[in-house]
């Protein structure tokens, strides 16, 4: 199983907790962390085709970052995507729903639920 984690370079501080928690809970699982939009696009390009072994975790630390991701929705279609959202306002949730995320949680959460979800997803085949 591969986790592809996107934390923008401007938000490394905000994303470090998330990265550390995933690192700690999924020791031995391949975790690739990307910090720029272009590198993420390139990574998506590589993962064209069946991607049962990949889970994309996107940290959208702001609404504008979430909007930025929205331009890639077509390419995330069919991919297993988890969103970390800046808030749970109506506008944010509305935008998030366009990704059909397998799971979403607000930034600053303990990420315990996220780890449980990742654990379950890691052990199942994609439907």
């Amino acid at each position: 199983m591969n986790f592809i984690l996107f934390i923008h370079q401007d938000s490394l501080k905000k994303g470090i907790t998330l990265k550390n928690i995933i690192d700690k809970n999924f020791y031995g699982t391949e975790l690739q962390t990307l910090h720029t939009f272009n590198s993420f696009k390139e990574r998506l390009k590589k993962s064209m085709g069946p991607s049962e072994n990949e889970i994309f975790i996107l940290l959208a630390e702001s609404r504008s970052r979430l909007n930025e991701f929205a331009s890639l929705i077509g390419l995330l279609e069919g991919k297993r995507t988890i969103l970390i959202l800046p808030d749970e306002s109506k506008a944010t949730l509305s935008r998030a729903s366009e990704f059909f995320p397998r799971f979403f949680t607000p930034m600053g959460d303990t990420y315990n639920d996220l780890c449980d979800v990742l654990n379950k997803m890691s052990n199942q085949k994609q439907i």
Partner: protein
Amino acid sequence: MPKILIIDDDPNICSVLSEKFKRMDQDTHWSLTLSDGLNRIFSDEFDIVFLDINLPDGNGLEAIDAIKDHPFAPEIIIMTGEGDPEGAEIAIKSKVWDYIQKSGSHKQIELSLIRALEYRQQKRIIIQGKKIKREAIIGESRQIKLCLRNILKASKNEVPILITGETGTGKELFAKALHENSLRHQNNFIVVDCTSLPEHLVESILFGHSKGAFTGADSHKAGLITMADGGTLFLDEIGELPLVIQKKFLRAFQEKRFRPVGSKIETSSDFRLISATHRNLTEMVKKNQFREDFYFRIASIKIETPPLRNRKSDIPLLVTHHMERKKKIFDELPHELSQEFLEDLYGYDWPGNVRELFNAIDYACSDAFQESILFSKHLPDNIRVFNIKNKIENHNGAASDYPTLEKSAPVDKFSFKEYIEKMKQTYLSDLISHTQGDIKTACRLSGLSRGHLYALLKKHNISSP
């Protein structure tokens, strides 16, 4: 001008009615056989069909369901020579517009037609006035149009919808379209993927929890049901929802009130429920894997998303859409499609549906790299192997001339009529399987008209594309 079709084997009746309707300024056509009539219905757009019951090549009543499958199904007025109460009951239960006797007055026929036309006009205004927002749902096939029409109809009420269909058919896109076309479109559309949620978390994620409800619950947290208040809750792969949660959810859904985990206070949420599954929930109910009361509550209206093998005419549109999207994002050099590449896409049966098609296109583009035209050799091996094997089998099969019956007919078990019907069913089933649902090829091979083939498939309960 509204279009009317009369299907009756009596040319005199057709001629008299046709003249009468033309005088009423109606564009009138007629067919003397059921197969010709069905063929016209499926290759055109009629508003009203006058349908006789006893036709030389079939029973009009048995064709009603097939006609109703047309994306713009005409209103049907059954005409019969002799009054048959049972036939009338079948017709009315099949939602035909009227059931009239040919021996009745012309005034009665005229009145029935005028009322049907008025209804048709009203229906047309409603449909035209409400153009469906379909976003990423790509396709113009009959199957997709039928599905979109059902989505449009369902979006105008609050009834729970169950979307069924194979993996990769885009059930979530249809759910989103339902929400976008509903009165709730300005509120949240909350997606819950039931496959990804661990059993011990489902309850708190759906219903929320209060501070201190369990170890780690250090603050109050709203659940997804609360977030869907005023909007739509989409339970994807609902077949995976644990039985114990189904019970609690059913109550919350019926009463619009529920208690978050660890909370003493009830909270409310007014949401519309859309569910989806690729599993057979009725089978799960029989095996006690899914609650029966819950099933009946969530499945008031069922919409089935068509598999790609039954709508292969949409393949070029889907491929173009996907390639355009990729080109825009990656700034890639455009690829052209060779004829043999397209033929191979048509030849494959796509068990993984649109998702598998897009994956295959991605693979082919990547394999072709800077070569500007995509050929079959760029496709994934499994698709090429499937098509080549298919071609070899078809070639070998062609040498075997007419079928031979290996065993003598079980004359003690079946009457002649029953046996012939059984043989017809086997033939049709083999035909559809052999052509992988490609109706055009099926018509060519069988020598049947499109309309006649659809009617036979319906009659023999064989799922047609």
